[in-house]
C-alpha cells in the first residue's frame, strides 16, 4: 500500500495514506479490547473470532483502502511500461492474494466457513513479494536488511536497558529510593529514547558508508566523468574515457558502445572494452533492430530482464543505456554484469541515466567538431589538388619542350657534318637531358595522382576490382623481387564503399611489408584472398612466407613508430598510415601470425555496402589510354 500510494504524486493520495496510518495505529491500540474482538471460538469446528462493534468499522476501512489502492495500482499498471510495469504486476498479484485472504478471514468471523485456509494465501503473498524484491528490485535488499537490523538492535538496547534495570534492579532501587524507585528507570528510559533516533541515524549512515562504499565511489567517478567529458573533442578518446571509467571504477565485466552510423543505416560498435571480449555482441545492429525500438520507447536505461525479445547472440548485456539528443538516439552503451553478479540498483540506473545525457551531449559535440575538422581537411586537400594540378601542368610543359628538343635535334646532329665522335657525344648529352625530363615527368605524375588520392569521398566499388587494380599496379615490383603472387577471389560480386586509391595504397603497404619480411626467405610467395567474413563484412587477407610477427608484437604492429624492419629501413609509419586509411574507409586492419618464421597475414576488413548495385559503380577510367575514334 505504501509502495503504491507512495508513488502517487497527488496530494489526496498522500493524505489518504497518512490517514490510513493513523487509523491503523488506532486499531492496533484497541486490538485487545472487547470492542474490536468480542471473543474467540476455539476448534468449533474451526477457530474463529466473535466480532465486536468496531470490527465492522475495521472491515469497512480495509475494503476502502484496498479498493482504493487496487484501482490506483491498475491505473498505474496500464500507463507504465517495461521494468516498472513488471514490478507493478507482481505487487498487484501479491495484493490480490492478500485481499482474498482478508475477505476469507472476515467471512469466518460471521460464521461462514473458510473455503481455503487464509494463512496459506498470506504466505503466498509474502513469497510473491519476496520474489519481486529480489528479481525486480523493489528495494535494495541489503540496505533494507541492514536498516532493519540496526533499528532492532538500537531499540533493544535503548528500551531494554531501562526495563532491565527496572526489573532486575528493583529490590536494590527500592532499598535506596523507597516508593519512588521507578523514577530512575523512567528518567533513563526518557533519555535513552531521546538518544535512540540519533544513534540509529548515526549507525545507519556509518553502515551505509561501508556497504555502499564501492557504489558511491563509482557514482562519484561517473559524475566526475560527466563534468569532464564535454571537454573531450575526439570521439574515440571520449568513448575510451567513458568506457574505461565505467569498467575500472564500477568493475563491470565489459562495455560496448554503439554509435549511429548513417552511412550504413545501423548502429555500429565504436568502442569495446576489454578488447578480447568479442563474443557478446554483433558489430552492426540495423536501425530497426528490436533493441533499438525498445530504447526509443523507453528512452531510459533498460535492464536485460525487461526485454525478452532480444536474441542474446545479437547483443548480450545486463544494462543498456541509451544516449538521446532530443529525439535522436545517437548512441547506446551496453554494460556487462557488476562484480559478483550484483544487481544494478535504482541508484545505479539513475546515475547511468544522468551520465547518458552528458554522454549524448559530448558525442554530439565531438561529432560536430570532427565534421568541422573533416571539412577543413577536405578544403585543404582540394586546394592542394588544384595546386598539384597546376604545378603538374607548369612542370610538364617545359619537360615536354626538353623531350621534344631531343627529338628535333637528334636527326639534325646525325645528318650534320660533324665528326662521328662529336655526334656521339652530343647525342649522348641529349639523351641524358631527355631521360632526366622523363624522370621529372614521372614524378609529377605521381604527385598529381597523390593529389587526387585524398578526395575523401567513399564511392561504390567492387572488392574484386580493387584487388585487381592493385595487382596490375604492383606486379612489376613483385616480379623484380622474384615473388610469386596467387589470388583467390570470391565468385560473387561483393560491393563496398571506399576510396579506391586509399584501399590500393593499403594493399601496397601490405605488399611493401611482405617484400621486406621475405627478403631472406627461400620461398617467396604472396597469397591475396578476398572473402566474406559474415553477411556484414568482407576481408582481404594478405599472406606472405616471410619471417612472421612475434606474438608480443602482433597487437602493436599497427601502432605508430613500431617497425618489424631494422630501424634504418622503416619509419614505422607505413602500417600506422594504413590504420588511418582503413578507418577512413570504415574498415579495420589487423595482423595474424603463427609466430616467428611462419609467415604473416595482414587483414583488411571492410563493411559490405548492401545497397550498392552493379550500375552504381563508377566508370573505369584509364588515364593513359589513347583515344582513337
Amino acid at each position, binding site marked *: 500500500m505504501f509502495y503504491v500510494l507512495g508513488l502517487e504524486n497527488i496530494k489526496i493520495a498522500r493524505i489518504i495514506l497518512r490517514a490510513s496510518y493513523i487509523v491503523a495505529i488506532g486499531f492496533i491500540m484497541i486490538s485487545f479490547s472487547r470492542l474490536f474482538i468480542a471473543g474467540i471460538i476455539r476448534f468449533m469446528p474451526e477457530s474463529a473470532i466473535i466480532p465486536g462493534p468496531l470490527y465492522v468499522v475495521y472491515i469497512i476501512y480495509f475494503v476502502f483502502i484496498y479498493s482504493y489502492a487496487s484501482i490506483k495500482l491498475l491505473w498505474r499498471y496500464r500507463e507504465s511500461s517495461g521494468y516498472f510495469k513488471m514490478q507493478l504486476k507482481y505487487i498487484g498479484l501479491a495484493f490480490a492474494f492478500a485481499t482474498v485472504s482478508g475477505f476469507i478471514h472476515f467471512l469466518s468471523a460471521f460464521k461462514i466457513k473458510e473455503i481455503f485456509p487464509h494463512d496459506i494465501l498470506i504466505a503466498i503473498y509474502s513469497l510473491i513479494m519476496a520474489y519481486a524484491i529480489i528479481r525486480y528490485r523493489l528495494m535494495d535488499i541489503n540496505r533494507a536488511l541492514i536498516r532493519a537490523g540496526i533499528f532492532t538492535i538500537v531499540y533493544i538496547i535503548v528500551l531494554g536497558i531501562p526495563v532491565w534495570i527496572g526489573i532486575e534492579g528493583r529490590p536494590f532501587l527500592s532499598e535506596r529510593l523507597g516508593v519512588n524507585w521507578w523514577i530512575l528507570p523512567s528518567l533513563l528510559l526518557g533519555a535513552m529514547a531521546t538518544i535512540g533516533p540519533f544513534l540509529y541515524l548515526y549507525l545507519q549512515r556509518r553502515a551505509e558508508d561501508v556497504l555502499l562504499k564501492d557504489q558511491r565511489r563509482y557514482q562519484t567517478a561517473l559524475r566526475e566523468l560527466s563534468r569532464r567529458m564535454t571537454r573531450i573533442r575526439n570521439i574515440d578518446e571520449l568513448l575510451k574515457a567513458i568506457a574505461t571509467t565505467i569498467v575500472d571504477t564500477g568493475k563491470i565485466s565489459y562495455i560496448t558502445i554503439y554509435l549511429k552510423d548513417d552511412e550504413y543505416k545501423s548502429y555500429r560498435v565504436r568502442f569495446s572494452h576489454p578488447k578480447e571480449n568479442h563474443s557478446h555482441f554483433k558489430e552492426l545492429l540495423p536501425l530497426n533492430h528490436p533493441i533499438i525500438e525498445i530504447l526509443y520507447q523507453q528512452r531510459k536505461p533498460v535492464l536485460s530482464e525487461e526485454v525478452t525479445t532480444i536474441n542474446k547472440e545479437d547483443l548480450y548485456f545486463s544494462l543498456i543505456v541509451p544516449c538521446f539528443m532530443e529525439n535522436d538516439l545517437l548512441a547506446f552503451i551496453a554494460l556487462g554484469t557488476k562484480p559478483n553478479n550484483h544487481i544494478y540498483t535504482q541508484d545505479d540506473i539513475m546515475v547511468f541515466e544522468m551520465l547518458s545525457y552528458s554522454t549524448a551531449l559530448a558525442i554530439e559535440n565531438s561529432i560536430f567538431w570532427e565534421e568541422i575538422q573533416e571539412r577543413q581537411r577536405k578544403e585543404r586537400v582540394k586546394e592542394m589538388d588544384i595546386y598539384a594540378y597546376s604545378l*603538374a601542368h607548369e612542370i610538364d610543359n617545359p619537360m615536354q619542350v626538353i623531350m621534344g*628538343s631531343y627529338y628535333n635535334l637528334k636527326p639534325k646532329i646525325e645528318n650534320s657534318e660533324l665528326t662521328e665522335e662529336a655526334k656521339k657525344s652530343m647525342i649522348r648529352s641529349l639523351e641524358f637531358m631527355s631521360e632526366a625530363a622523363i624522370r621529372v615527368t614521372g614524378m609529377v605524375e605521381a604527385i598529381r595522382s597523390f593529389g587526387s588520392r585524398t578526395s575523401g569521398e567513399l564511392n561504390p566499388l567492387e572488392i574484386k576490382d580493387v584487388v585487381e587494380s592493385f595487382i596490375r599496379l604492383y606486379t612489376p615490383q613483385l616480379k623484380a623481387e622474384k615473388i610469386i603472387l596467387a589470388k583467390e577471389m570470391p565468385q560473387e560480386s561483393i560491393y563496398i564503399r571506399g576510396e579506391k586509391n586509399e584501399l590500393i595504397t593499403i594493399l601496397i603497404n601490405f605488399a611493401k611489408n611482405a617484400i621486406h619480411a621475405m627478403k631472406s626467405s627461400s620461398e617467396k610467395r604472396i597469397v591475396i584472398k578476398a572473402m566474406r567474413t559474415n553477411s556484414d563484412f568482407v576481408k582481404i587477407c594478405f599472406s606472405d612466407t616471410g619471417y612472421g610477427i612475434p606474438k608480443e608484437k602482433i597487437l602493436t604492429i599497427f601502432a605508430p613508430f613500431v617497425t618489424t624492419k631494422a630501424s634504418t629501413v622503416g619509419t614505422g609509419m607505413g602500417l600506422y598510415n594504413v590504420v588511418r586509411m582503413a578507418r577512413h574507409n570504415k574498415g579495420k586492419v589487423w595482423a595474424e601470425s603463427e609466430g616467428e618464421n611462419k609467415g604473416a597475414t595482414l587483414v583488411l576488413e571492410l563493411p559490405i555496402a548492401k545497397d550498392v548495385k552493379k550500375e552504381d559503380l563508377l566508370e573505369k577510367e584509364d588515364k593513359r589510354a589513347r583515344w582513337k575514334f
Partner: protein
Amino acid sequence: MDKIKILVVDDEEGIVHWVTNVYADRGFLTFAAMDGEKAVEIFKKEHPSIVLIDVHMPYSAIDGIQTLKKIKEIDKNTVCIMVTRITDNKTVEEARKLGALHYIPKPLTMDELDEAINEAIDIVKKGKK
C-alpha cells in the same frame, strides 16, 4: 605533288618549335600557332590538311575544343588530332563528336605522335585520290 600542310597549335612555344621542325625536316609544310585565334587565322589563309591542337591553352581566347569546332566549321574534312594532359571523359566525348581523329595524352612521345600523324597522312592521301 604539293607538300602536305600541317598546322601545330600549342601555347608552349618550345613544343610548337619541336613539332614543326621535326615534320618540316621530313618534307611537310608546317605552320605554328600559339593560340586558338591565330590558328583559325592561319587556317583560313593556308588551308592545312592536318591540324594538331592542344586542348588546354589557358592564355588563349578560345581553347582547343573551340578551335577544333571553328576549323571543322570551315572545312569538315580537315584531319584534326587533339593533344592534352586532361583526359576527362566529357572533353574526349566532345572532341569525338566534333570529328577529331585522335586524342593523344601528354607527355607526347615521338612514336605516339608519328603514329597519329602517319594515319592522318594516309587519310589525307586517300582523300586527294
